[in-house]
Protein backbone atom coordinates (compact mmCIF):
# COMPACT_ATOMS: atom_id res chain seq x y z
CA UNK A 1 0.00 0.00 0.00
CA UNK A 2 1.38 3.41 -0.84
CA UNK A 3 0.66 6.88 0.48
CA UNK A 4 -0.27 9.78 -1.77
CA UNK A 5 0.09 13.49 -1.03
CA UNK A 6 -3.21 15.28 -1.63
CA UNK A 7 -2.60 17.76 -4.50
CA UNK A 8 -6.00 19.49 -4.19
CA UNK A 9 -7.18 22.62 -2.38
CA UNK A 10 -8.28 21.19 0.96
CA UNK A 11 -10.00 24.20 2.49
CA UNK A 12 -13.53 23.45 3.54
CA UNK A 13 -15.89 24.82 0.96
CA UNK A 14 -19.00 25.88 2.84
CA UNK A 15 -21.57 25.81 0.11
CA UNK A 16 -23.42 29.09 -0.11
CA UNK A 17 -27.04 28.76 -1.09
CA UNK A 18 -28.62 31.38 -3.33
CA UNK A 19 -30.77 34.07 -1.72
CA UNK A 20 -34.53 33.34 -1.75
CA UNK A 21 -36.11 34.09 -5.11
CA UNK A 22 -38.58 36.96 -5.41
CA UNK A 23 -42.26 36.01 -5.68
CA UNK A 24 -42.98 38.93 -7.96
CA UNK A 25 -41.26 42.05 -9.21
CA UNK A 26 -44.15 44.38 -8.42
CA UNK A 27 -43.22 47.23 -6.12
CA UNK A 28 -39.68 45.97 -5.72
CA UNK A 29 -36.42 47.87 -5.92
CA UNK A 30 -34.04 46.24 -8.38
CA UNK A 31 -30.45 47.00 -9.27
CA UNK A 32 -29.09 46.65 -12.78
CA UNK A 33 -25.36 46.05 -12.69
CA UNK A 34 -23.75 47.06 -15.99
CA UNK A 35 -20.58 44.98 -16.36
CA UNK A 36 -19.08 47.43 -18.91
CA UNK A 37 -19.54 45.47 -22.11
CA UNK A 38 -19.99 47.62 -25.21
CA UNK A 39 -23.44 49.21 -25.48
CA UNK A 40 -24.48 47.87 -22.11
CA UNK A 41 -26.21 51.14 -21.29
CA UNK A 42 -28.57 50.92 -24.25
CA UNK A 43 -29.48 47.36 -23.38
CA UNK A 44 -30.08 48.17 -19.72
CA UNK A 45 -32.05 51.33 -20.51
CA UNK A 46 -34.51 49.17 -22.41
CA UNK A 47 -34.53 46.53 -19.68
CA UNK A 48 -35.24 49.19 -17.06
CA UNK A 49 -38.15 50.47 -19.12
CA UNK A 50 -39.63 46.96 -19.48
CA UNK A 51 -39.19 46.20 -15.78
CA UNK A 52 -41.11 49.30 -14.81
CA UNK A 53 -43.80 49.26 -17.50
CA UNK A 54 -44.52 45.56 -17.75
CA UNK A 55 -43.61 44.23 -14.32
CA UNK A 56 -44.41 47.14 -12.01
CA UNK A 57 -40.91 47.46 -10.58
CA UNK A 58 -40.98 50.46 -8.22
CA UNK A 59 -37.40 51.61 -8.55
CA UNK A 60 -34.34 50.65 -10.56
CA UNK A 61 -30.86 51.42 -9.24
CA UNK A 62 -28.02 51.47 -11.76
CA UNK A 63 -24.40 50.59 -11.03
CA UNK A 64 -21.45 49.99 -13.34
CA UNK A 65 -18.46 47.69 -12.87
CA UNK A 66 -15.27 49.19 -14.25
CA UNK A 67 -14.45 45.98 -16.13
CA UNK A 68 -16.25 42.73 -16.88
CA UNK A 69 -13.07 40.73 -16.48
CA UNK A 70 -12.76 41.13 -12.72
CA UNK A 71 -15.06 40.67 -9.72
CA UNK A 72 -17.14 43.62 -8.56
CA UNK A 73 -15.40 45.68 -5.85
CA UNK A 74 -16.65 45.06 -2.33
CA UNK A 75 -17.76 48.67 -1.90
CA UNK A 76 -20.02 48.37 -4.94
CA UNK A 77 -21.62 45.19 -3.62
CA UNK A 78 -22.15 46.85 -0.25
CA UNK A 79 -23.83 49.82 -1.92
CA UNK A 80 -26.35 47.41 -3.42
CA UNK A 81 -27.14 45.75 -0.09
CA UNK A 82 -30.52 47.48 0.26
CA UNK A 83 -32.15 46.36 -3.00
CA UNK A 84 -34.56 43.44 -3.37
CA UNK A 85 -32.71 41.94 -6.28
CA UNK A 86 -29.82 42.49 -8.67
CA UNK A 87 -29.66 41.73 -12.37
CA UNK A 88 -26.05 41.52 -13.52
CA UNK A 89 -26.19 42.18 -17.18
CA UNK A 90 -24.16 41.69 -20.31
CA UNK A 91 -24.41 43.38 -23.66
CA UNK A 92 -22.14 43.16 -26.76
Amino acid at each position, binding site marked *: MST*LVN*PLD*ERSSDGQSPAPRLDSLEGKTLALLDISKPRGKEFLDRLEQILKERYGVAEVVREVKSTYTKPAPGALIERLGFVDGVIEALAD
Partner: protein
Amino acid sequence: MLTPGDLAPDFSLARLDGTDWRLDEEVVGGPLLLAFIETDCPTCRLAIPYLKRLAEALGANRHRVVVVSQDGDADTRELVDTYDVGFPVLLDVDLETSRTYDPPSVPALFLVGQGGQVEFSGVGFHKEDLNSVAERMLSGLGLPVRTVADLDDGAPLMKPGCTSRHLELVGSLEAGVSPEPIDLLPERAPRASRLELPKDEDPYEYCMNAGFSPFLPVVPPTAERVDAFLAAISHEPDRVVGLVPPCYGPATIEKIAANAVMAGCKPEYMEVLIPVIRAACDERFNLHGVQATTHAATPLIMLSGPAATRLGFASGAGAFGNVARANSSVGRALQLMMANLGGALPGGIDMSALGNPGRFSYCVAENHAESPWEPLHVELGFGPEESTVTLFAAGGLTEVSEHNARTGAGVLRTIAATLSMVWSWRRCGRVDAVVVLCPEHVATLNADRFSKSDVRDFLFDNTGVPLRAFDHDGTEGTQLRETYEEIVIDDEPHYRKFSDPSQIKIIVVGGTAGKFSAVVGGWLTGAEGSQTVTYPVKW
Protein backbone atom coordinates in the same frame (compact mmCIF):
# COMPACT_ATOMS: atom_id res chain seq x y z
CA MET B 1 -2.98 50.51 -15.86
CA LEU B 2 -4.97 53.01 -17.85
CA THR B 3 -3.12 54.19 -20.91
CA PRO B 4 -3.54 57.11 -23.31
CA GLY B 5 -6.82 56.88 -25.17
CA ASP B 6 -8.63 55.17 -22.30
CA LEU B 7 -11.61 56.96 -20.85
CA ALA B 8 -10.67 57.98 -17.30
CA PRO B 9 -13.32 56.34 -15.10
CA ASP B 10 -15.23 58.85 -13.01
CA PHE B 11 -14.70 58.69 -9.26
CA SER B 12 -15.32 60.73 -6.19
CA LEU B 13 -13.08 60.84 -3.13
CA ALA B 14 -12.91 62.88 0.04
CA ARG B 15 -10.41 65.71 0.16
CA LEU B 16 -8.18 65.89 3.19
CA ASP B 17 -10.57 68.49 4.63
CA GLY B 18 -13.46 66.04 4.29
CA THR B 19 -15.21 67.70 1.35
CA ASP B 20 -16.17 65.70 -1.71
CA TRP B 21 -14.12 65.86 -4.93
CA ARG B 22 -15.53 64.49 -8.20
CA LEU B 23 -13.57 63.92 -11.39
CA ASP B 24 -16.46 64.73 -13.72
CA GLU B 25 -16.97 68.12 -12.07
CA GLU B 26 -13.32 69.08 -11.80
CA VAL B 27 -12.25 68.10 -15.31
CA VAL B 28 -14.58 70.71 -16.82
CA GLY B 29 -12.66 73.56 -18.41
CA GLY B 30 -9.21 72.03 -18.60
CA PRO B 31 -6.94 69.06 -18.03
CA LEU B 32 -6.27 67.45 -14.66
CA LEU B 33 -3.12 65.75 -13.48
CA LEU B 34 -3.86 62.91 -11.07
CA ALA B 35 -0.79 61.85 -9.07
CA PHE B 36 -1.20 58.64 -7.06
CA ILE B 37 1.25 58.50 -4.17
CA GLU B 38 2.13 56.68 -0.97
CA THR B 39 3.25 58.81 1.93
CA ASP B 40 6.20 56.58 2.85
CA CYS B 41 7.51 56.13 -0.70
CA PRO B 42 10.81 58.02 -1.15
CA THR B 43 10.18 58.45 -4.87
CA CYS B 44 6.74 59.94 -4.22
CA ARG B 45 8.32 62.39 -1.78
CA LEU B 46 10.91 63.23 -4.41
CA ALA B 47 8.13 64.07 -6.88
CA ILE B 48 6.05 66.31 -4.59
CA PRO B 49 8.17 69.50 -4.92
CA TYR B 50 8.01 69.21 -8.72
CA LEU B 51 4.23 68.85 -8.60
CA LYS B 52 4.16 71.95 -6.41
CA ARG B 53 6.22 73.80 -9.01
CA LEU B 54 3.75 72.78 -11.71
CA ALA B 55 0.83 73.93 -9.54
CA GLU B 56 2.54 77.30 -9.04
CA ALA B 57 3.04 77.67 -12.79
CA LEU B 58 -0.66 76.92 -13.30
CA GLY B 59 -1.58 79.91 -11.10
CA ALA B 60 -5.35 80.15 -10.84
CA ASN B 61 -5.55 76.62 -12.28
CA ARG B 62 -3.37 75.16 -9.52
CA HIS B 63 -6.27 72.95 -8.44
CA ARG B 64 -5.71 70.97 -11.64
CA VAL B 65 -2.83 69.14 -9.96
CA VAL B 66 -4.47 66.55 -7.72
CA VAL B 67 -2.70 64.12 -5.41
CA VAL B 68 -4.45 60.85 -4.65
CA SER B 69 -3.00 59.45 -1.44
CA GLN B 70 -3.15 55.71 -0.92
CA ASP B 71 -2.71 56.19 2.82
CA GLY B 72 -4.86 57.33 5.70
CA ASP B 73 -5.69 60.74 7.03
CA ALA B 74 -2.86 61.09 9.59
CA ASP B 75 -0.01 60.00 7.32
CA THR B 76 -1.28 62.11 4.45
CA ARG B 77 -1.67 65.19 6.67
CA GLU B 78 1.93 64.80 7.82
CA LEU B 79 3.09 64.75 4.20
CA VAL B 80 0.98 67.78 3.26
CA ASP B 81 2.30 69.75 6.24
CA THR B 82 5.91 68.75 5.56
CA TYR B 83 5.78 69.89 1.95
CA ASP B 84 3.30 72.73 2.41
CA VAL B 85 1.13 71.37 -0.37
CA GLY B 86 -1.54 73.77 -1.66
CA PHE B 87 -3.31 71.68 -4.30
CA PRO B 88 -6.13 69.18 -3.65
CA VAL B 89 -5.13 65.99 -1.82
CA LEU B 90 -7.64 63.13 -1.95
CA LEU B 91 -7.78 60.05 0.26
CA ASP B 92 -8.16 56.70 -1.53
CA VAL B 93 -8.26 54.74 1.69
CA ASP B 94 -10.11 51.70 0.33
CA LEU B 95 -7.90 51.79 -2.80
CA GLU B 96 -10.89 51.43 -5.08
CA THR B 97 -9.77 54.26 -7.34
CA SER B 98 -6.22 52.88 -7.34
CA ARG B 99 -7.58 49.53 -8.46
CA THR B 100 -9.55 51.18 -11.24
CA TYR B 101 -6.59 53.19 -12.54
CA ASP B 102 -4.33 50.26 -11.72
CA PRO B 103 -0.79 51.68 -11.73
CA PRO B 104 1.78 48.96 -10.99
CA SER B 105 3.78 51.38 -8.90
CA VAL B 106 3.72 54.91 -7.47
CA PRO B 107 4.16 57.75 -8.02
CA ALA B 108 1.79 57.30 -10.94
CA LEU B 109 0.70 60.20 -13.12
CA PHE B 110 -2.48 60.30 -15.20
CA LEU B 111 -3.11 63.38 -17.32
CA VAL B 112 -6.85 63.53 -18.00
CA GLY B 113 -7.96 65.83 -20.82
CA GLN B 114 -11.10 67.86 -20.47
CA GLY B 115 -12.85 65.32 -22.71
CA GLY B 116 -12.26 62.78 -19.95
CA GLN B 117 -9.67 60.75 -21.84
CA VAL B 118 -6.32 59.75 -20.44
CA GLU B 119 -3.73 61.70 -22.45
CA PHE B 120 -0.66 60.47 -20.60
CA SER B 121 0.09 57.90 -17.94
CA GLY B 122 3.34 56.85 -16.36
CA VAL B 123 4.86 55.50 -13.17
CA GLY B 124 7.99 56.36 -11.24
CA PHE B 125 9.81 59.68 -11.16
CA HIS B 126 10.84 60.93 -14.60
CA LYS B 127 11.88 64.53 -15.09
CA GLU B 128 11.16 64.38 -18.80
CA ASP B 129 7.63 63.12 -18.16
CA LEU B 130 7.01 65.89 -15.64
CA ASN B 131 8.23 68.50 -18.11
CA SER B 132 6.20 67.08 -20.95
CA VAL B 133 3.03 66.95 -18.80
CA ALA B 134 3.68 70.53 -17.66
CA GLU B 135 4.10 71.68 -21.25
CA ARG B 136 0.81 70.08 -22.28
CA MET B 137 -1.12 71.50 -19.35
CA LEU B 138 0.34 75.00 -19.53
CA SER B 139 0.10 75.37 -23.30
CA GLY B 140 -3.40 73.87 -23.26
CA LEU B 141 -4.49 76.55 -20.83
CA GLY B 142 -2.75 79.30 -22.78
CA LEU B 143 -0.15 79.85 -20.06
CA PRO B 144 3.60 80.36 -20.57
CA VAL B 145 5.41 77.03 -20.72
CA ARG B 146 7.93 76.54 -17.95
CA THR B 147 10.41 73.76 -17.11
CA VAL B 148 9.30 72.31 -13.80
CA ALA B 149 12.04 69.69 -13.51
CA ASP B 150 15.50 71.07 -14.20
CA LEU B 151 17.59 68.19 -15.53
CA ASP B 152 20.66 69.47 -13.72
CA ASP B 153 19.25 70.29 -10.30
CA GLY B 154 21.04 67.45 -8.60
CA ALA B 155 18.06 65.09 -8.36
CA PRO B 156 18.20 61.97 -10.52
CA LEU B 157 16.66 62.09 -13.98
CA MET B 158 14.56 59.11 -13.05
CA LYS B 159 13.90 56.96 -10.03
CA PRO B 160 11.66 53.89 -9.86
CA GLY B 161 8.84 54.03 -7.31
CA CYS B 162 7.24 51.58 -4.92
CA THR B 163 4.60 48.95 -5.60
CA SER B 164 1.17 50.54 -5.64
CA ARG B 165 -0.72 49.83 -2.42
CA HIS B 166 -3.50 47.95 -4.20
CA LEU B 167 -0.91 45.44 -5.42
CA GLU B 168 0.85 45.18 -2.09
CA LEU B 169 -0.86 42.05 -0.96
CA VAL B 170 -0.92 42.88 2.73
CA GLY B 171 -2.05 46.40 1.99
CA SER B 172 -5.17 45.14 0.27
CA LEU B 173 -6.56 43.70 3.48
CA GLU B 174 -8.64 46.71 4.39
CA ALA B 175 -11.81 45.53 6.06
CA GLY B 176 -14.78 45.71 3.79
CA VAL B 177 -12.80 45.87 0.56
CA SER B 178 -13.85 42.38 -0.41
CA PRO B 179 -17.28 40.90 0.17
CA GLU B 180 -15.51 37.88 1.64
CA PRO B 181 -12.30 39.27 3.10
CA ILE B 182 -9.48 36.83 2.54
CA ASP B 183 -5.95 36.89 3.77
CA LEU B 184 -4.14 37.74 0.57
CA LEU B 185 -0.72 36.88 1.84
CA PRO B 186 -0.72 34.09 4.37
CA GLU B 187 2.83 32.95 4.95
CA ARG B 188 1.85 29.44 5.90
CA ALA B 189 -1.00 27.10 5.09
CA PRO B 190 -1.87 23.65 6.46
CA ARG B 191 0.19 20.70 5.26
CA ALA B 192 -1.33 18.49 2.59
CA SER B 193 -3.22 15.47 3.85
CA ARG B 194 -1.97 11.96 3.13
CA LEU B 195 -4.20 9.48 1.34
CA GLU B 196 -3.73 5.74 1.61
CA LEU B 197 -4.06 4.08 -1.76
CA PRO B 198 -6.56 1.22 -1.38
CA LYS B 199 -5.05 -2.18 -1.85
CA ASP B 200 -5.40 -3.60 -5.36
CA GLU B 201 -6.52 -0.25 -6.78
CA ASP B 202 -4.70 0.96 -9.88
CA PRO B 203 -2.91 4.16 -8.77
CA TYR B 204 -3.44 5.87 -12.13
CA GLU B 205 -7.18 5.23 -12.11
CA TYR B 206 -7.33 6.25 -8.46
CA CYS B 207 -5.81 9.67 -9.25
CA MET B 208 -8.25 10.24 -12.09
CA ASN B 209 -11.27 9.21 -10.01
CA ALA B 210 -10.13 11.33 -7.07
CA GLY B 211 -10.20 14.42 -9.30
CA PHE B 212 -6.44 14.98 -9.35
CA SER B 213 -6.62 15.19 -13.14
CA PRO B 214 -9.90 13.88 -14.51
CA PHE B 215 -8.89 14.49 -18.14
CA LEU B 216 -5.46 12.86 -18.51
CA PRO B 217 -3.59 10.32 -16.37
CA VAL B 218 -0.87 11.63 -14.09
CA VAL B 219 2.12 10.29 -12.21
CA PRO B 220 0.73 9.32 -8.77
CA PRO B 221 2.03 11.85 -6.20
CA THR B 222 3.43 9.32 -3.75
CA ALA B 223 4.89 10.60 -0.50
CA GLU B 224 8.32 9.34 -1.60
CA ARG B 225 8.23 11.26 -4.87
CA VAL B 226 6.96 14.46 -3.26
CA ASP B 227 9.58 14.17 -0.50
CA ALA B 228 12.30 13.99 -3.15
CA PHE B 229 11.06 17.32 -4.54
CA LEU B 230 10.90 18.89 -1.08
CA ALA B 231 14.44 17.72 -0.35
CA ALA B 232 15.68 19.50 -3.48
CA ILE B 233 14.64 22.98 -2.32
CA SER B 234 15.34 25.15 0.68
CA HIS B 235 11.76 26.25 1.47
CA GLU B 236 9.48 24.81 4.15
CA PRO B 237 6.66 22.65 2.73
CA ASP B 238 3.90 24.78 4.28
CA ARG B 239 5.18 28.07 2.88
CA VAL B 240 2.65 29.79 0.62
CA VAL B 241 3.97 30.95 -2.77
CA GLY B 242 0.66 32.35 -3.99
CA LEU B 243 -3.10 32.01 -3.88
CA VAL B 244 -4.37 30.65 -7.16
CA PRO B 245 -7.38 32.50 -8.64
CA PRO B 246 -10.27 32.30 -9.01
CA CYS B 247 -10.89 30.25 -5.83
CA TYR B 248 -7.58 31.29 -4.25
CA GLY B 249 -6.43 27.88 -3.04
CA PRO B 250 -3.02 28.25 -1.37
CA ALA B 251 -0.13 27.05 -3.51
CA THR B 252 2.23 25.86 -0.80
CA ILE B 253 5.63 24.46 -1.66
CA GLU B 254 4.22 21.01 -0.87
CA LYS B 255 1.13 21.43 -3.09
CA ILE B 256 3.32 22.73 -5.92
CA ALA B 257 5.58 19.70 -5.47
CA ALA B 258 2.65 17.26 -5.50
CA ASN B 259 1.25 18.77 -8.70
CA ALA B 260 4.72 18.93 -10.25
CA VAL B 261 5.18 15.22 -9.55
CA MET B 262 1.84 14.51 -11.21
CA ALA B 263 2.84 16.56 -14.27
CA GLY B 264 6.05 14.59 -14.70
CA CYS B 265 8.49 17.28 -13.58
CA LYS B 266 11.98 16.70 -12.22
CA PRO B 267 12.71 18.09 -8.74
CA GLU B 268 15.00 20.79 -10.15
CA TYR B 269 12.11 22.31 -12.15
CA MET B 270 10.77 23.71 -8.86
CA GLU B 271 13.19 26.58 -9.40
CA VAL B 272 11.07 27.65 -12.37
CA LEU B 273 7.69 26.59 -11.04
CA ILE B 274 7.88 28.89 -8.04
CA PRO B 275 8.19 32.10 -10.13
CA VAL B 276 5.63 30.70 -12.57
CA ILE B 277 3.12 30.44 -9.70
CA ARG B 278 4.06 33.90 -8.47
CA ALA B 279 3.41 35.32 -11.93
CA ALA B 280 0.13 33.42 -12.33
CA CYS B 281 -1.09 34.76 -8.97
CA ASP B 282 -0.02 38.35 -9.71
CA GLU B 283 -3.14 40.51 -9.71
CA ARG B 284 -2.02 42.21 -12.92
CA PHE B 285 -2.16 38.91 -14.80
CA ASN B 286 -5.81 38.54 -13.75
CA LEU B 287 -5.90 34.75 -13.74
CA HIS B 288 -9.42 35.09 -12.39
CA GLY B 289 -10.57 36.48 -15.72
CA VAL B 290 -8.32 34.23 -17.78
CA GLN B 291 -9.76 31.13 -16.10
CA ALA B 292 -13.39 32.21 -16.19
CA THR B 293 -13.66 33.80 -19.64
CA THR B 294 -15.49 32.18 -22.55
CA HIS B 295 -12.38 33.02 -24.64
CA ALA B 296 -9.75 30.30 -25.15
CA ALA B 297 -6.92 32.17 -23.41
CA THR B 298 -4.57 30.33 -21.10
CA PRO B 299 -1.13 31.23 -19.73
CA LEU B 300 1.73 30.83 -22.17
CA ILE B 301 4.99 30.50 -20.20
CA MET B 302 8.00 32.08 -21.94
CA LEU B 303 11.41 31.39 -20.37
CA SER B 304 14.42 33.54 -21.05
CA GLY B 305 17.94 33.33 -19.70
CA PRO B 306 20.55 30.69 -18.84
CA ALA B 307 18.28 28.72 -16.47
CA ALA B 308 16.24 27.55 -19.46
CA THR B 309 19.26 25.89 -21.06
CA ARG B 310 20.56 24.55 -17.77
CA LEU B 311 17.24 22.84 -16.98
CA GLY B 312 16.75 21.47 -20.48
CA PHE B 313 13.94 23.64 -21.82
CA ALA B 314 13.51 23.38 -25.59
CA SER B 315 13.76 26.55 -27.62
CA GLY B 316 14.68 25.14 -31.03
CA ALA B 317 12.93 22.78 -33.42
CA GLY B 318 9.45 21.85 -32.31
CA ALA B 319 9.62 23.94 -29.15
CA PHE B 320 5.85 24.43 -28.97
CA GLY B 321 5.24 20.69 -29.29
CA ASN B 322 6.04 17.56 -27.37
CA VAL B 323 9.78 17.93 -27.56
CA ALA B 324 11.23 18.30 -24.07
CA ARG B 325 10.25 17.06 -20.65
CA ALA B 326 10.89 20.47 -19.08
CA ASN B 327 8.50 22.34 -21.41
CA SER B 328 5.80 19.65 -21.32
CA SER B 329 5.81 19.06 -17.59
CA VAL B 330 6.23 22.63 -16.33
CA GLY B 331 3.39 23.84 -18.56
CA ARG B 332 1.26 20.94 -17.43
CA ALA B 333 2.07 21.50 -13.75
CA LEU B 334 0.76 25.06 -14.02
CA GLN B 335 -2.42 23.84 -15.71
CA LEU B 336 -2.95 21.21 -13.00
CA MET B 337 -2.57 23.83 -10.28
CA MET B 338 -4.97 26.19 -12.07
CA ALA B 339 -7.58 23.43 -11.74
CA ASN B 340 -6.58 21.76 -8.47
CA LEU B 341 -5.78 24.90 -6.46
CA GLY B 342 -7.51 27.59 -8.54
CA GLY B 343 -10.69 25.57 -8.84
CA ALA B 344 -11.31 26.20 -12.53
CA LEU B 345 -12.61 23.09 -14.24
CA PRO B 346 -14.13 23.07 -17.73
CA GLY B 347 -17.88 23.52 -17.66
CA GLY B 348 -17.76 24.93 -14.15
CA ILE B 349 -15.76 28.08 -13.55
CA ASP B 350 -13.79 27.55 -16.75
CA MET B 351 -16.36 28.61 -19.31
CA SER B 352 -14.17 28.65 -22.43
CA ALA B 353 -16.30 28.02 -25.50
CA LEU B 354 -13.60 26.07 -27.33
CA GLY B 355 -10.74 25.49 -24.91
CA ASN B 356 -7.21 25.49 -26.23
CA PRO B 357 -4.60 22.76 -26.74
CA GLY B 358 -2.34 25.02 -24.65
CA ARG B 359 -4.48 24.05 -21.68
CA PHE B 360 -2.56 20.77 -21.58
CA SER B 361 0.77 22.59 -21.57
CA TYR B 362 1.97 25.87 -23.09
CA CYS B 363 5.61 26.57 -22.35
CA VAL B 364 8.56 27.61 -24.51
CA ALA B 365 12.02 29.04 -24.03
CA GLU B 366 13.57 31.72 -26.19
CA ASN B 367 16.24 30.53 -28.63
CA HIS B 368 19.07 32.86 -27.64
CA ALA B 369 21.61 30.96 -29.74
CA GLU B 370 19.78 31.90 -32.94
CA SER B 371 18.98 35.47 -31.98
CA PRO B 372 21.28 38.42 -32.73
CA TRP B 373 19.17 40.62 -30.44
CA GLU B 374 19.07 41.10 -26.70
CA PRO B 375 17.15 38.24 -25.03
CA LEU B 376 13.62 38.84 -23.78
CA HIS B 377 14.72 39.12 -20.13
CA VAL B 378 17.41 41.70 -20.98
CA GLU B 379 14.89 43.68 -23.02
CA LEU B 380 12.70 43.69 -19.89
CA GLY B 381 15.50 45.14 -17.77
CA PHE B 382 17.08 42.06 -16.21
CA GLY B 383 20.78 41.26 -16.31
CA PRO B 384 22.13 38.85 -18.96
CA GLU B 385 23.07 36.35 -16.23
CA GLU B 386 19.55 36.37 -14.79
CA SER B 387 16.63 34.27 -16.00
CA THR B 388 12.93 35.05 -16.10
CA VAL B 389 9.51 33.55 -16.66
CA THR B 390 6.98 35.67 -18.53
CA LEU B 391 3.29 34.80 -18.61
CA PHE B 392 1.04 35.90 -21.45
CA ALA B 393 -2.69 35.16 -21.62
CA ALA B 394 -2.61 33.37 -24.95
CA GLY B 395 -4.98 32.00 -27.51
CA GLY B 396 -3.86 29.55 -30.16
CA LEU B 397 -0.75 29.58 -32.33
CA THR B 398 -1.16 30.69 -35.96
CA GLU B 399 1.76 29.84 -38.22
CA VAL B 400 2.95 32.33 -40.82
CA SER B 401 4.75 30.82 -43.79
CA GLU B 402 6.96 33.21 -45.76
CA HIS B 403 9.48 31.35 -47.91
CA ASN B 404 9.81 33.84 -50.74
CA ALA B 405 10.43 37.26 -49.24
CA ARG B 406 14.08 38.21 -49.49
CA THR B 407 13.89 41.31 -47.34
CA GLY B 408 13.11 41.92 -43.70
CA ALA B 409 10.28 44.26 -44.64
CA GLY B 410 8.82 41.54 -46.86
CA VAL B 411 8.86 39.04 -44.02
CA LEU B 412 7.24 41.53 -41.66
CA ARG B 413 4.48 42.52 -44.11
CA THR B 414 3.38 38.92 -44.27
CA ILE B 415 3.43 38.60 -40.48
CA ALA B 416 1.51 41.90 -40.20
CA ALA B 417 -1.32 40.43 -42.27
CA THR B 418 -1.77 37.60 -39.76
CA LEU B 419 -1.29 40.03 -36.89
CA SER B 420 -4.17 42.14 -38.17
CA MET B 421 -6.50 39.18 -37.50
CA VAL B 422 -5.75 38.99 -33.79
CA TRP B 423 -8.88 38.75 -31.60
CA SER B 424 -11.20 39.55 -34.48
CA TRP B 425 -10.75 41.13 -37.92
CA ARG B 426 -12.31 44.52 -37.16
CA ARG B 427 -11.29 44.81 -33.49
CA CYS B 428 -8.45 47.29 -33.05
CA GLY B 429 -6.85 49.08 -30.13
CA ARG B 430 -6.89 47.05 -26.98
CA VAL B 431 -5.50 43.80 -28.37
CA ASP B 432 -2.12 42.21 -27.95
CA ALA B 433 -0.06 39.39 -29.38
CA VAL B 434 3.22 37.52 -29.20
CA VAL B 435 5.11 37.37 -32.47
CA VAL B 436 7.22 34.22 -32.54
CA LEU B 437 10.05 34.71 -35.00
CA CYS B 438 11.80 31.65 -36.42
CA PRO B 439 15.59 31.72 -36.86
CA GLU B 440 15.48 31.90 -40.66
CA HIS B 441 13.24 34.96 -40.59
CA VAL B 442 15.42 36.49 -37.89
CA ALA B 443 18.47 35.98 -40.13
CA THR B 444 16.73 37.83 -42.98
CA LEU B 445 15.75 40.66 -40.62
CA ASN B 446 19.23 40.87 -39.17
CA ALA B 447 20.78 40.99 -42.64
CA ASP B 448 18.59 44.02 -43.31
CA ARG B 449 19.75 45.57 -40.01
CA PHE B 450 16.43 45.34 -38.21
CA SER B 451 16.83 45.54 -34.43
CA LYS B 452 14.13 44.03 -32.25
CA SER B 453 12.62 47.44 -31.64
CA ASP B 454 12.75 48.17 -35.40
CA VAL B 455 10.74 44.98 -35.93
CA ARG B 456 8.18 46.06 -33.34
CA ASP B 457 7.90 49.56 -34.79
CA PHE B 458 7.53 48.23 -38.34
CA LEU B 459 4.77 45.85 -37.27
CA PHE B 460 3.07 48.62 -35.28
CA ASP B 461 3.08 50.94 -38.30
CA ASN B 462 2.12 48.32 -40.87
CA THR B 463 -0.56 46.30 -39.09
CA GLY B 464 -4.02 47.59 -39.73
CA VAL B 465 -7.49 46.80 -40.96
CA PRO B 466 -8.58 48.53 -44.20
CA LEU B 467 -11.50 50.90 -43.82
CA ARG B 468 -13.35 49.02 -46.56
CA ALA B 469 -13.69 46.13 -44.11
CA PHE B 470 -16.08 48.31 -42.12
CA ASP B 471 -18.68 48.63 -44.85
CA HIS B 472 -20.89 46.10 -43.10
CA ASP B 473 -22.43 47.39 -39.89
CA GLY B 474 -23.29 45.12 -37.04
CA THR B 475 -20.04 43.17 -36.98
CA GLU B 476 -17.66 43.01 -34.03
CA GLY B 477 -15.36 46.00 -33.84
CA THR B 478 -17.50 48.33 -35.96
CA GLN B 479 -19.14 49.81 -32.86
CA LEU B 480 -15.73 50.96 -31.58
CA ARG B 481 -14.39 52.49 -34.79
CA GLU B 482 -14.67 56.05 -33.50
CA THR B 483 -11.90 55.18 -31.06
CA TYR B 484 -9.55 53.81 -33.74
CA GLU B 485 -6.61 55.66 -35.25
CA GLU B 486 -6.63 56.06 -39.02
CA ILE B 487 -3.31 55.47 -40.81
CA VAL B 488 -2.20 54.78 -44.35
CA ILE B 489 -0.63 51.45 -45.22
CA ASP B 490 0.41 50.77 -48.83
CA ASP B 491 -1.50 53.86 -49.99
CA GLU B 492 -4.75 52.58 -48.51
CA PRO B 493 -6.48 54.00 -45.42
CA HIS B 494 -6.49 51.58 -42.50
CA TYR B 495 -7.30 51.58 -38.82
CA ARG B 496 -4.19 50.92 -36.78
CA LYS B 497 -4.51 47.49 -35.16
CA PHE B 498 -2.61 48.16 -31.93
CA SER B 499 -2.81 51.27 -29.80
CA ASP B 500 0.78 50.96 -28.55
CA PRO B 501 3.90 49.15 -29.85
CA SER B 502 4.29 47.44 -26.44
CA GLN B 503 1.23 45.39 -27.25
CA ILE B 504 3.42 43.44 -29.69
CA LYS B 505 5.70 41.04 -27.80
CA ILE B 506 8.56 39.43 -29.72
CA ILE B 507 10.41 36.19 -29.03
CA VAL B 508 12.77 34.09 -31.12
CA VAL B 509 11.87 30.40 -31.09
CA GLY B 510 12.28 27.45 -33.39
CA GLY B 511 14.56 25.31 -35.49
CA THR B 512 17.03 26.56 -38.05
CA ALA B 513 15.19 25.07 -41.03
CA GLY B 514 11.80 26.30 -42.17
CA LYS B 515 10.63 29.84 -42.69
CA PHE B 516 7.66 29.52 -40.38
CA SER B 517 7.08 32.20 -37.78
CA ALA B 518 3.88 32.49 -35.78
CA VAL B 519 1.43 34.85 -34.13
CA VAL B 520 -0.14 34.08 -30.76
CA GLY B 521 -3.13 36.29 -30.12
CA GLY B 522 -3.88 37.41 -26.60
CA TRP B 523 -6.95 37.99 -24.50
CA LEU B 524 -8.11 41.45 -23.45
CA THR B 525 -5.04 43.46 -22.62
CA GLY B 526 -4.29 46.28 -20.20
CA ALA B 527 -5.68 47.05 -16.79
CA GLU B 528 -9.14 45.86 -17.84
CA GLY B 529 -7.86 42.49 -18.99
CA SER B 530 -4.64 40.59 -18.45
CA GLN B 531 -1.24 42.25 -18.33
CA THR B 532 1.88 40.32 -19.28
CA VAL B 533 3.95 39.70 -16.16
CA THR B 534 7.59 38.68 -15.69
CA TYR B 535 9.25 37.22 -12.61
CA PRO B 536 12.92 36.40 -12.10
CA VAL B 537 13.94 32.78 -11.63
CA LYS B 538 15.46 32.80 -8.17
CA TRP B 539 14.86 31.22 -4.81
